[in-house]
């Protein structure tokens, strides 16, 4: 029984948020798209419909390498984070006694609140040649010589995984505790082994949670500048790093915009691949 008046009122409530999103998200996005088709002559911006920037992405080695590197790092981080976080969430949900669960979960995500910029820097200190990791392994006799861990892709991945294990533990835990214990009991009553129960009952039921968490990991990881910049040693650059170089050293907005559009494209593909299981409105 919606009257026109009520509908108008409804629009009145929705309008501010819509306008904000439109003015500060959609419009910039369209302008960025137009910018990616512009070119730079010296420092003069020439608007137009040139695909020169995209052609450069294919031609210049450091540009397409950055896309490959970004994809490799992001996929590694996503997979490793899920594989490490799932057992952790599982243990907190099913092994830790109920009354301690909330505390255990809180402890597992507390370092979330270290400053994001400082967190990567802290990993630099941990992974340094005479940092904690090398010192411990040397003392245990596991290695004879300190390993080069900092300023490598390994360091970047470690820094990322640390952050996303916390994030994923949270989302997967939330999913696991929502499962009724009856499912497990029923499966076991029907003679399923622990593994079969997991494979055929629990995993499918928690898949939406995993995929949603993994998708968030993917989006946040592929767009991140700070972690690879601090930990990666600059021996290979990710797309965000190349974007920031273009902005910081040359103010090449058209090329930066083209790279950003490519980044968006990759995220869209990931979204479509995951869409079946995604529950973004339930984060």
């Amino acid at each position: 029984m919606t009257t026109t008046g009520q509908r108008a009122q409804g629009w009145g409530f929705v309008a501010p948020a819509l306008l904000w999103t439109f003015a500060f998200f959609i419009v910039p996005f369209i302008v960025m798209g137009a910018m990616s088709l512009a070119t730079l002559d010296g420092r003069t911006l020439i608007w137009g419909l040139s695909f020169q920037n995209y052609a450069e992405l294919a031609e210049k080695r450091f540009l397409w390498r950055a896309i490959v590197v970004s994809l490799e790092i992001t996929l590694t981080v996503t997979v490793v984070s899920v594989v490490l976080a799932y057992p952790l969430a599982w243990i907190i949900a099913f092994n830790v006694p109920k009354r301690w669960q909330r505390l255990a979960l809180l402890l597992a995500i507390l370092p979330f609140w270290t400053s994001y910029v400082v967190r990567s820097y802290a990993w630099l200190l941990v992974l340094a040649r005479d940092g904690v990791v090398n010192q411990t392994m040397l003392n245990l006799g596991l290695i004879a010589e300190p390993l080069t861990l900092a300023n490598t892709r390994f360091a970047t991945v470690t820094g990322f995984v640390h952050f996303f294990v916390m994030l994923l533990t949270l989302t997967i835990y939330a999913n696991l505790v929502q499962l009724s214990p009856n499912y497990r009991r029923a499966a076991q009553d029907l003679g399923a082994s622990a593994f079969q129960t997991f494979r055929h009952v629990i995993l499918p039921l928690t898949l939406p949670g995993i995929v949603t968490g993994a998708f968030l990991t993917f989006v946040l990881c592929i767009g991140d500048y700070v972690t690879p910049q601090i930990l990666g040693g600059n021996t290979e650059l990710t797309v965000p790093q190349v974007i920031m170089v273009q902005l910081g050293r040359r103010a090449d907005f058209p090329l930066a915009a083209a790279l950003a559009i490519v980044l968006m494209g990759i995220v869209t593909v990931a979204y479509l691949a995951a869409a079946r299981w995604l529950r973004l409105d339930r984060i």
Partner: protein
Amino acid sequence: MMRLLPWMYLAVAFVFIYLPVATLVLFSFQDGQLPVPPFNGPSLRWYGDVLGDSRLTAALINSVLVALGASLIAVTLGFLAAYGLARHVLPGSALIRALLIAPLTVSYLIVGLGLLIVLTQAGLGLSLVTAGIGHVVINLPLAFAIIFAAMGAQQQNAERAARDLGANEMQVILLVTVPMLAPAIGAAFFLSMTFSWDEFIISFLLTRFDVTLPVEIWSMLRSGLSPRLNAIGSLVFLVSIAVVLTLELFVFRKRRS
């Protein structure tokens, strides 16, 4: 052995999770110029150094202001949109929801870059306000999603009752809906504050003279290795977990009991 396995995994996981934090805090007490082993100390000199740094204090205040402002706007807009969509039948409401959630699927860097391009092309100056605008863009979807999910039939009945008793729309919202949704609104606000407080790349791209704390820390980080970084990092961590634990103990726990 099999029964111990989960506990061993838990222990190893916690070591991994706390390794950087512990190293960070330990070397904030370093007595010397370099935050690397061997550890000499403890010394509080770097804390004194950090607390006496006027740029850092200014950045800290800026961060709080931006986070507060951006969260207030994001939560208000998010609440209004959720209310409008939950209580009124609007054509294309699925599309509207998708549009409002969309910024969530885009990297912060891209949100910041897009705004930077528009602002520079329009000849508008950068400031804490522009950084705050960017923060609202990224926080609005979260605030909307959280509050929208919490809107149910329960409040709708109370709202109807209030309306029957002669309350106008404004009164219904302020006196019925908002109090009933307080937990969700609070959670949305808290989450917005967390993200905005710690956000780096949008602030980095969209501020000019006055910067937020993460941007100031980034400048320090670019200028040289020093236990000062450890000290400011430890302080931020300490304050943040104090807030989180206080909320956990006094707000969320109380709510559940």
